[in-house]
């Protein structure tokens, strides 16, 4: 599925970063909207928050935190690569970023259950 010139870890890191960024940008307004219910409609908010007990919602939430983790670590990797002159280990960094994000979201999952 991935075109041949892209089949390497750095490109994978790039596309993960892009997809996670995009997904976050789409999620964030929803998140803001939910919170602003606080002002207008406390009942609905509580109803909504109750839903977090619901497995589906939980899964969605988990996905978003996962995305956030992926994006942050991908972003930090980039920032490190661009601003710190130790540059030759990007591949390892890319892998590590994914690893750490899985770890974080895993912790989240365990805690939440």
């Amino acid at each position, binding site marked *: 599925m*991935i075109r041949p010139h*892209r089949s390497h870890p750095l490109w994978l890191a790039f596309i993960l970063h892009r997809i996670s960024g995009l997904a976050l940008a789409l999620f964030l307004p929803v998140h803001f909207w939910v919170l602003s219910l606080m002002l207008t409609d406390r009942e609905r908010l509580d109803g909504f928050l109750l839903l977090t007990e619901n497995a589906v919602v939980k899964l969605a939430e988990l996905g978003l935190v996962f995305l956030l983790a992926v994006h942050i670590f991908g972003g930090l990797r980039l920032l490190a690569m661009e601003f710190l002159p130790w540059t*030759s280990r990007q591949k390892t960094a890319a892998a590590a970023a994914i690893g750490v994000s899985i770890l974080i979201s895993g912790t989240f999952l365990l805690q939440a259950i």
Partner: protein
Amino acid sequence: MLRKLIDSVGPQFEAFKSQDEGLGVTETDKNIDVSVWRGGPDGGSFQRFEVPKQDNQTILDVVAWIQQNDDPTLSYRFACRVGMCGSCAMMVNGNPRWTCRTHVNKVLKNDRLEIAPLRNLPVIKDLAADMDPFFDKWREAGGVFHPTKSRNDPVEEISPLEEERQNANAGIECINCGVCYAACDVVAGNPDYLGPAALNRAWTLLNDTRDCGSQSILAAVSRGGGCHNCHSMGNCAHLCPNELSPMTSIAGLKRVTALSFLRPGN
């Protein structure tokens, strides 16, 4: 959705998808089924040829065999035939490569090859791409030495151990083959983007202590199509036949441009 996203990153050649890079087993007395892109600036399509397999055979040899034995009208370009001039790059099974030094066994999959002109450049005819935009950008990125001395001065003493010289040396052996330019999806998406090779050259110049054009280079690589468009996707470094890393050079440019913006005195 994912598929669409991946595809949306940039327009692609309809490429035969192969991810296998390993050296295959050599089997002679077999034919290779070769699809070659034929056409011109207004478009074209793939044409199939049967080429006899040989022990030692590069992609360029396959192309030349077709022109010399099957279809004399096939157009392509090469010069040095040994990886020095960067004239012969083409898309081979979806990857940009120097064809004169790509052994058929390295890329062959199920005895099939698909050969197309270099991506991200206008086509002249068949497999010959017009490299002018590539060199125009090389120039736009400030890619020319700005001297301070003359032919009557002695050669300057510069230790190869200096950090700046090492930075420059790391990127200097570029043969301007355009492989990285064809591999970069940002180039595909953003026609103004100067591209990995031109920016790599700018970085080597910036690290050349004899060059007095730093300010103009920094300005050139900071414009709309400049180094800040690079997403470090690394296709350039992954595919550069000379194992250079334009990505690393571009990261250097980002760093230096940012620093010089934040500390204009420097």
